[in-house]
């Protein structure tokens, strides 16, 4: 059963999917040099990254939620839920809205579109440093968001 977005169980599954990298089929769809570049960029992206789920009352999230993703050598190790304040203090801070997660997960929006449209937004952090790793970011968050099923919280009715 799918876990609620930004629950403890969802977060571990999300990280596991991001860390797993491409399947054999996904690997075949792109050139070997590209995957080498992804790995090389991942090795340099060693930043504690705050991931903030923006408030979206219509999706059942009246308040933002947050998680900490400590990236080391292309993998996240020791992820945990945290306060929005703590996430905001990290060197890199990425924001997404529940509806964006929903669209990317459903294949209605590609991760690349989400990045170009700032639906997946680098809210804090050095822009040049981040985009020197743009292939790694696209792939890691693409795997994590596409593969991790989720459910929205039950809506409170008045």
């Amino acid at each position: 059963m799918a876990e609620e977005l930004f629950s403890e169980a969802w977060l571990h599954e999300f990280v596991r999917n991001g860390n797993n990298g491409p399947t054999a089929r996904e690997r075949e769809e792109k050139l070997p040099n590209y995957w080498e570049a992804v790995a090389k960029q991942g090795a340099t992206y060693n930043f504690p990254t705050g991931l903030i789920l923006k408030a979206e009352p219509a999706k059942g999230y009246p308040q933002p939620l947050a998680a900490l993703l400590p990236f080391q050598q292309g993998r996240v190790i020791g992820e945990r839920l945290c306060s929005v304040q703590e996430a905001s203090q990290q060197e890199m801070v990425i924001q997404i809205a529940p509806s964006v997660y929903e669209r990317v997960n459903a294949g209605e929006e590609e991760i690349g579109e989400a990045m170009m449209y700032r639906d997946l937004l680098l809210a804090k952090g050095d822009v040049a440093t981040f985009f020197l790793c743009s292939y790694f970011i696209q792939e890691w968050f693409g795997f994590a968001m596409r593969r991790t099923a989720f459910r929205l919280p039950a809506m409170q009715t008045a």
Partner: protein
Amino acid sequence: MAIDIEAERVVERASFREMRTVDVNDVIEYVHAGIQQWPTSRDLYDKYAIQRWNVQELDFTQDRIDWETKLSNDEKEAFLYVATGFHHGERQVEVDLWPEFMAIDNDEDKIFLTSQMEDEARHTIFFDRFYREVVGYDGEGIRGVLHQSYAHATPGLVGAFAYLTHLGDRIRQNPEDRHTLVEFIAAYHLWIEGVGALTVMQTTLNFCRRRGVLPGYYQGFNATTRDESRHVQFGTSVLHRMLHEDPTYVEDINRALRVNLAISSVAAFRVQYEPLGYTEEEFQGIFMNQLMRKTRAIGLELPQDILEAAQNVRPEAFGGG
């Protein structure tokens, strides 16, 4: 190759209808001739007023016939990889140019940038019409068609435009930060427009000309290339001026080049450009030529690491703009 005075005059004064027959190679040279004259932003605005065109005047009837009956599948595939870069790129810059407008502090520059925003809106509609009326895509609004053409977008395209749009975001947060403004102008006017876009314009428009296909696309995109001349001349002129005011801005320009070169040196897919009449080496040669001419014009001496990175650029990674 330099443009002679008569050819320059033809490009400068051609009506929109005449852009159907103006040689794209002359339009590309017209961009560089203009840089050397350092036009003011007011000069460029005045040119805009004369050169602007109406996207509704384009007739894609013959293009549709050519697409369905004359172009091979290989040609269509290569063409779509290139055109998709522009399709997305034009939308991105139309939506994200205003932070530059907000941060730039010279009135004449702001006035010019209003004309560039209008150009980019027109180019966005041009591609929307081309994809709907010629390629046959359908979708709700601009985004719906963009989503369909995303199938031909590359991770390199995403990287370059997401980088630009996030720089714009930083300018919004701090319009007084001149270093980020310079990085934005270098990433946009110098790299995306001055190097990437002109390279791709030159190759695809020469393909249309040689093959005698897609006359509506040629007319509209050739006019787009002429519009690009004003944008590139504006950007190089502003960078030249700002470097003169503060030579430390060179690091911001170099940063923008390093990020974009890192993105452009890796291809995710192999795209066969031969159907468009170019080898990969020829493509890279045109790219290097575009880069060196712009950077020399603004008096920028590129450091060794950037020159080396520029040798590794993959055309697949940077189509469009």
